[in-house]
């Protein structure tokens, strides 16, 4: 068996990440297809996956470039979507503290939702050495990186073959939807989504310039989530957790 010859944490990482790799295949394919549909060159499409390597923000940028939104709004949206990784970085930092700077720099580059989630779960349920923690994190994050790049390439090749009439660009809002629906796990999050979506549509109808409706909608949605949380907390005094 392959797994018996590998260091245990590497074998364990491969085992844990495998089902997740299957799950990111369609996402990676869409990011390649959609970039070509949006008029990016294959090299630009690949550049997004290599330099940014964060699916949701890549798709948002592709979507906004296709709509010829203002470049500042496009960039800002991508950055805001990726801000969540501040939390991952802060949370995983103590576990990767004692490793060498060079490995730390690469570890940061391949940090994603999935590699963060798996590593934190693994570190919580067993007592690993710093080296084992790095092995586990690294193999998980690297496997995700490799599958992401390969599926982007396949998506680019497919996107170049499929006629525009098929409307494959529509897969982008469908992917957003597939991430959005399971992310609504509480009433404040539902409020954030409803207000965010409604304000963004309002921005379109009022033809706010530069796709500003998106930014305003995002801010209004976060505000709605926070105030709903506050109202619910007030109603159930003593019970803080609404998540």
């Amino acid at each position, binding site marked *: 068996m392959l797994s018996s010859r590998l260091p245990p944490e590497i074998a364990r990482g491969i085992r844990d990440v495998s089902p997740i790799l299957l799950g990111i295949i369609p*996402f990676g394919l869409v990011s390649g297809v959609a970039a070509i549909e949006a008029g990016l060159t294959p090299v630009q499409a690949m550049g997004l996956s290599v330099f940014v390597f964060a699916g949701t923000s890549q798709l948002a940028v592709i979507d906004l470039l296709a709509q010829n939104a203002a470049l500042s709004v496009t960039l800002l949206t991508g950055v805001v979507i990726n801000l969540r990784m501040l939390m991952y970085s802060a949370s995983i930092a103590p576990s990767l503290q004692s490793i060498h700077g060079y490995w730390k720099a690469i570890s940061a580059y391949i940090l994603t939702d999935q590699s963060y989630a798996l590593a934190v779960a693994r570190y919580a349920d067993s007592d690993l050495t710093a080296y084992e923690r790095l092995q586990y994190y690294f193999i998980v994050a690297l496997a995700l990186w490799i599958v992401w790049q390969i599926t982007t390439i396949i998506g680019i090749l497919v996107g170049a073959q499929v006629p525009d009439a098929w409307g494959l660009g529509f897969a982008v809002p469908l992917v957003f939807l597939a991430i959005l629906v399971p992310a609504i796990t509480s009433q404040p999050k539902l409020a954030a989504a409803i207000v965010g979506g409604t304000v963004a549509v309002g921005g379109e109808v009022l033809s706010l310039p530069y796709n500003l409706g998106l930014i305003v909608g995002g801010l209004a949605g976060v505000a709605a989530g926070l105030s709903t949380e506050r109202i619910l907390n007030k109603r159930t005094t003593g019970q803080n957790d609404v998540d």
Partner: protein
Amino acid sequence: MSTEYGPIAIWSVILSLGILTYTIRASFVTLFGLIDDVPPEITNALRYVPPAVLAALTVPAFLSPTGSVEIIGNERVFAGIAATAAAWYFDDVTATIVVGMCILWIIRFGL
């Protein structure tokens, strides 16, 4: 829809987003010890960024693809409703894409 931006504009977005995203990822891994944690108010607000921003990206794409709200004759609304049901029921990206694209194609090519 296809972008009218030239290569310099597109590359500047790709590289700027790449640099900023790397900065976000590396922030605490590198600076650990200087700042210890994200302030709780910010962590709390960040939890609402995905639902708010994803909805702000998604809802107009289904409801007002051309800039005004259209329900009748808008194939994307029907595909979007079916895909929302699929996302909720299956909790799976592939199933959501397949259902949404199939409804779009049925309306566009099949009726």
